[in-house]
């Protein structure tokens, strides 16, 4: 779990109180924090190894941004591909800048709360890294890892949250309102609620467990997407006299590539969330997380394959892709404690959720262009809920309460933002633009200008 361990004197007490609540991963945390175990790496070597974990984990999670871009580009129709690509690269850039300007310090009060456990001081706003060429004395937290490596890793989680939203709203939302929402999401909404858990806030004190963010990242993105979809309405012609009109993705090879990229990135997403690699215990846990993460993805994908074959007589590749991702989201709340068998099963149920969740949303006439809501929101809730099954420190009640609290906050917050944006500038392109495709109308270029479209 993302409990940032550098805690200034001022917050030592708080820390003391809440540490016991941190669950398994805390063992690791302690291991890293406590005096170096006999025969193990010294404190500085541990610091280096944990920093490496964040750098490698971080670039793997960065890679997920490409995965979302390819997945979404592959699942939208060709007339909207260039716009979807633009949104993905722009949202990542914005996340990088606003998480730096506001988000990072809002997320990690490090004990300095404006409102204890609920709202960090916004000051100092911008993220500050350690100096150049420091020695042990110069390290912010010699028992943890370099601040820059932590920042790099955490930033990628913030960007992931924003990536989730872009897919659901594809093919109809205007570029700029979407980007403005991204700014609010990455600067405030995500970091604030994340501080409640990973910043050591009240959810953390309650004993809420979310190792790598089934709720803190995926459901949050999912809720924001869902609310956006409601404000935005479905794509023209998606629901016609009670029937659902499929709008097939234009490039399933890209969509599959995107899924593989996300799968790869997830090893960093979950593995890096161990937040320590300087002891035998930590590296063994990280390894366990890698293996479990893979098992859950495989379970989800296979389940979607078999289910669609049984339900529809033919397997549905796009469902299989969503199934793998749902498996990954499902295991993200607790990738450490399950056995390989349980990890597979938890992922499999994620696959079931997707196969039924996609048509269910359509029944509600909620149009999710890429299936992000079933994958990230529904499977995210499932994964968060089931943590206590394998982690004795977890409580189902606490999990449910926390899920609801985060849900309530994100729904209200993003509803307000979407509402204002709709009022002020409008969220949706006009019908003609939507029919012609956003690429030509909003960008003046096409993703595949030479291929005649059938």
């Amino acid at each position, binding site marked *: 779990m993302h409990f940032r361990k550098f805690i200034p004197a001022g917050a030592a007490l708080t820390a003391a109180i809440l540490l016991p609540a941190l669950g398994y991963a805390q063992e690791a945390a302690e291991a890293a924090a406590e005096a170096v175990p006999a025969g193990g790496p010294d404190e500085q070597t541990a610091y280096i190894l944990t920093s490496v974990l964040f750098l490698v984990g971080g670039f793997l999670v960065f890679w997920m941004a490409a995965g979302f871009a390819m997945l979404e580009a592959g699942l939208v129709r060709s007339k909207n591909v260039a716009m979807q690509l633009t949104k993905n690269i722009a949202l990542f850039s914005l996340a990088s800048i606003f998480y730096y300007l506001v988000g990072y310090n809002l997320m990690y009060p490090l004990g300095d709360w404006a409102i204890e456990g609920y709202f960090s001081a916004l000051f100092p706003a911008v993220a500050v890294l350690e100096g150049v060429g420091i020695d042990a004395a110069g390290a912010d937290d010699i028992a943890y890892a370099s601040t820059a490596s932590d920042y790099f890793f955490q930033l990628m989680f913030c960007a992931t949250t924003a990536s989730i939203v872009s897919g659901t709203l594809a093919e109809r939302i205007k570029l700029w309102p979407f980007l403005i929402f991204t700014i609010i999401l990455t600067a405030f909404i995500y970091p604030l609620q994340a501080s409640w858990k990973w910043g050591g806030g009240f959810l953390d004190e309650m004993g809420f467990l979310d190792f790598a963010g089934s709720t803190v990242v995926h459901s949050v993105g999912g809720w924001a997407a869902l609310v956006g979809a409601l404000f935005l309405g479905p794509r023209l012609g998606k629901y016609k006299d009670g*029937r659902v009109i*499929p709008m097939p993705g234009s490039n399933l090879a890209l969509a599959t590539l995107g899924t593989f990229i996300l799968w790869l990135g997830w090893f960093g997403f979950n593995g890096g969330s161990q937040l320590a690699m300087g002891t035998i215990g930590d590296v063994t846990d990280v390894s366990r997380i890698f293996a479990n993460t893979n098992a859950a993805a495989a379970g989800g994908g296979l389940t979607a394959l078999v289910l669609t074959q049984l339900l529809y007589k*033919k397997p549905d590749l796009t469902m299989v892709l969503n199934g793998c991702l749902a498996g990954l989201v499902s295991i993200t709340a607790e990738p450490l404690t399950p056995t390989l068998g349980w990890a597979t099963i938890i992922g499999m149920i994620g696959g079931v959720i997707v*196969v039924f969740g*996609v*048509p269910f949303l*359509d029944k509600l006439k909620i149009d999710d262009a890429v*299936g992000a809501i079933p994958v990230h929101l529904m499977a995210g809730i499932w994964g968060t809920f089931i943590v206590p099954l394998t982690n004795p420190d977890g409580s189902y009640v606490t999990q449910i309460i926390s899920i609801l609290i985060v849900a309530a906050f994100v729904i209200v917050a993003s509803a307000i933002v979407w509402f204002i944006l709709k009022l002020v500038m409008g969220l949706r392109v006009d019908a003609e633009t939507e029919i012609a495709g956003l690429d030509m109308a909003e960008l003046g270029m096409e993703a595949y200008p030479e291929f005649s479209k059938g």
Partner: protein
Amino acid sequence: MKLIIAAIKPFKLEEVREALTAIGVRGMMVTEIKGFGSQSGHTEIYRGAEYAVNFVPKVKLEIVVSAAMADQVVETIQTTAKTDKIGDGKIFVLDVNQAVRVRTGETNDDAL
């Protein structure tokens, strides 16, 4: 001269082209089309939603030949493209008043 328009199954293109070359057709225009006809209309499921596949991929040939040759061409296409399965396609014949070869400016039968 006659313009012969034929919609056939894509995998038959090569065979038909060879047969036509054999009887002396020296040129044609080939276009990928979506065909709608009695063959059409099976339904598929995408992400849980049914949809009817109303169009099947076909290839359209457009061939201009001298009036004298027209019947032979039609017959050749018909016999070669035939699979006796639904969706084999159609052949239509229209009149052409004039033909020009861009390179030389030759006209009508000389242009073919």
